């Protein structure tokens, strides 16, 4: 079956702009996770959804970052007033239940100029 998909695969934006990154999880997976991976680093946890609600958003770096999952399936990560330091690969993962294996998407590479 289809894996986790993320769109766009690449996004270039200018400092100060607003961006939205989309994640389509594996069908039926109730848990969804967002991570950020900077160059030369491991992924860093941002937020985790169980169904429609954010169960843990402790990794969001500041209030410019926000994520939603209104129908418990697709999720959107929103970044306001982007900064050059936001440049990274944003990874999404989903799992059948919250304690099962996470399956990762290919990521969205964000470049803020």
């Amino acid at each position, binding site marked *: 079956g289809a894996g986790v998909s993320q769109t766009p695969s690449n996004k270039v934006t200018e400092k100060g702009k607003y961006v939205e990154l989309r994640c389509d999880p594996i069908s039926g997976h109730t848990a969804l996770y967002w991570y950020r991976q900077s160059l030369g680093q491991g992924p860093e946890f941002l937020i985790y959804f169980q169904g429609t609600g954010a169960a843990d958003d402790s990794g969001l770096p500041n209030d410019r970052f926000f994520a939603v999952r209104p129908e418990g399936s697709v999720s959107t990560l929103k970044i306001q007033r982007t900064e050059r330091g936001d440049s990274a690969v944003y990874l999404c993962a989903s799992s059948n239940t919250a304690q099962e294996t*996470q399956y990762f998407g290919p990521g969205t590479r964000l470049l803020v100029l």
Partner: protein
Amino acid sequence: AQSVTQPDIHITVSEGASLELRCNYSYGATPYLFWYVQSPGQGLQLLLKYFSGDTLVQGIKGFEAEFKRSQSSFNLRKPSVHWSDAAEYFCAVALLSGGSYIPTFGRGTSLIVHP
């Protein structure tokens, strides 16, 4: 807070040789430990995980890892490396938070395989 150290940024091995990638963690309680692999253009894939029980864990693609509490280590091994194993490998330690295991990743070890 938990942390993970992967002391080797790059490891180079010849095809057919054995492999050991090092991972040390810092965490007060019994950790949940993972190894992931990331190939170019592909998403992270779980190789294996340790939650409890037998300290030698078997994973996919012929990999295994051994949990050593006394050394706070969870090293990844493979007896014979294939060229297709060239990738980035990440060790992670997880806390149970909000009902899920939220991993903290190491910075990764890049595996280079010579023919």
